[in-house]
């Protein structure tokens, strides 16, 4: 078993943990954190793929490495937008929960405009 395989399995485990956290952690902030863990697991897997493709004198395949850089920036944008929404919700509502209204009712009050 090579080191890249070890990190590949590690990436799979981190992704599993991220998925679990995304489903079960109740607070939105914890979900955002779990999403970041999940994302970092994906990036790690990409890094493993890049490392396995080391050739032509490069320590890794530069294409997936570049994709990870783009991915990290996109994930950061997502986090920033989610946190802005969350803090705004907290400010308007005084609480920050994602719970839908009680079962049976049809969710939020729509408006037109």
């Amino acid at each position: 078993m090579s080191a890249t395989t070890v990190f590949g399995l590690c990436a799979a485990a981190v992704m599993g943990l991220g998925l679990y956290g995304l489903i079960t952690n109740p607070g939105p902030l914890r979900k955002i954190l779990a999403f970041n863990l999940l994302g970092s697991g994906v990036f790690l897997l990409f890094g493993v793929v890049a490392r396995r493709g080391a050739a032509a004198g490069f320590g890794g395949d530069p294409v997936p490495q570049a994709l990870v850089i783009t991915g990290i920036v996109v994930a950061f944008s997502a986090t920033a937008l989610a946190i802005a929404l969350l803090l705004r919700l907290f400010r308007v509502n005084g609480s920050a929960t994602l719970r839908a209204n009680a079962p049976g009712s049809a969710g939020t009050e729509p408006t037109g405009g």
Partner: protein
Amino acid sequence: MPYLVPDLHAVTTTNGFLLALSLVVPVVGVLLAFFAGGRHVERIAFATMPLGFAIAAAILVALWRTHGSLVYLLGGWAPPLGVALRADGLSAVMMMTTAMVICAVGVFAYADFRTLGGEARAPLAFWILLLAIWGALNTVFLGGDLFTLYVALELLTFAAVPLVCLDGRAETLQAALRYLLFALFGSALFLVGVTLLYGAYGTLDIVLLSHRINAEPATLIAAALMTAGLLAKTALFPLHLWLPPAHAGAPAAASAVLSALVVKGSFFLVVRLWFDVMPGLPGFAATQLLAALGAAAIVFGSVVALRQERLKLLIAYSTLAQIGYLFLMFPLAFGSGSAQLENSGALTAGILQAVSHATAKAAMFMAAGLIYTALGHDRITGLAGVGRVLPMSVIAFALSGLALIGLPPSGVYLAKGLLLQAAIESEQWWWEVVIQAGAFFTSGYVLLVLAHALAPADAPITLRVPISRIREAAALTLALCSLLLGLVPWGTYLSVPAGTLSNPLALEAMLSALWPIMGGGVLAILLGRWGHRLARVPLREVVIAAIGPARRAALTFGKMFERADGALRQWPAAGLSLMVVAIMFGAAMLMGR
């Protein structure tokens, strides 16, 4: 020409630059609008719209001339190292639809998002996000590289989410946050699949992948995760927790874009994945599973739609049901068990349904928005008399409803014909049943709304605000488009088997469309909310005695669905559903190997 032409040594085709322009123009619009701000924003948006429309039209013409697909190599770098843009019939049709809907929404939204006096956030954000959605969708339709498509999908999400909460109320903020988080969940799964595919084949280019790909476990795991992730973004049942509050809570113009176009972006990627990246690889069980989710979405979405008190929520749940229709084509296109695309007519039908729904649903949300603005509420039981005061809006709603039911010569009528033919050819009678029954459900909620809107008012209605004719005309135009889609010569861009285009205006076709309408009437009477209306029909006792028990039974049934909907829209349940869907697709694909 539904297939991307397999060109292993890609070169830029003549007129290929149009593809690059179609992405650049909206992006330039976004950047200019953000920099200029204030009143310039609308001007920039309205300058971009005809330009974008013209480019979409030019691509249609260029594609018609070349009889193949357009290819553009960005930076001159050929895949696998570079990124190619490719336009086939599917992408050209979807781009044109997008251009039409965006332009109509722009005209409609002008009254709501006009900058008066100083710069305000909501208008500035709306126009920027509208243009960004356009650019993102064009990238989704043209992108030839899975990672570029991932970035485009994220761009689409980031443009769509703030549209939900432009009014800044707590409910819409919560809806936007749920939407964003679930969409991120989905895109993470998509990206995992992209990673595995790169690891296995060393390219993310769609055409190159389609040549190298084979049914290895890693590929199938990737396919299952990507499909599940995309379905979460498309809000296919049972992954719809974010859709009803987001689409119903947004301002009308935003709802129109979200419901008509944004969900089609991820749907289109499912089509690309299953038809172009790995044609036939998912296998029989997986296509059946996908369509089964679609069928469940139709029943579930329609029944819950019938139980809604508010028009916008009804339309949002109708979107849920209509998304289901889009997935019925998968088992029919691939036939039973064979790995090849058997019936390209079914694929055409799926795209036609997407186009019809895009135009009709945008019209519906616009009409509902006008009704809300005029009345100050959108309670369905309080709509009586609207037909008198806002005839154009109600007609727009009615026409788009009829288009969705499949009245000839609408696009849905044509699509239904193609799907039925495919079902008969591939001997999958159960999908015939679903396709026929689907129209009953659609007409149920359309009739429910129309019955209320056309009823005489209890008291004369005064409009809170005068409604401009232009806004009504925008909705009506889109509704008419949807109703007349069947007359378009689709054969140029999509493959239409001979014989299906016989005569959509024949009397027989019209008559056959009456059955679903009548069936829908029964459904609406049994399941709808009627307020005091039902009590005023003539021969009240007789009617109630006749339908009473049936309605009681139906209501119990409807309540059950509502309760299930409430449970499924809780976050942990939706997250678990997403995992279950991913695992089921994986299992189905591995079994079908």
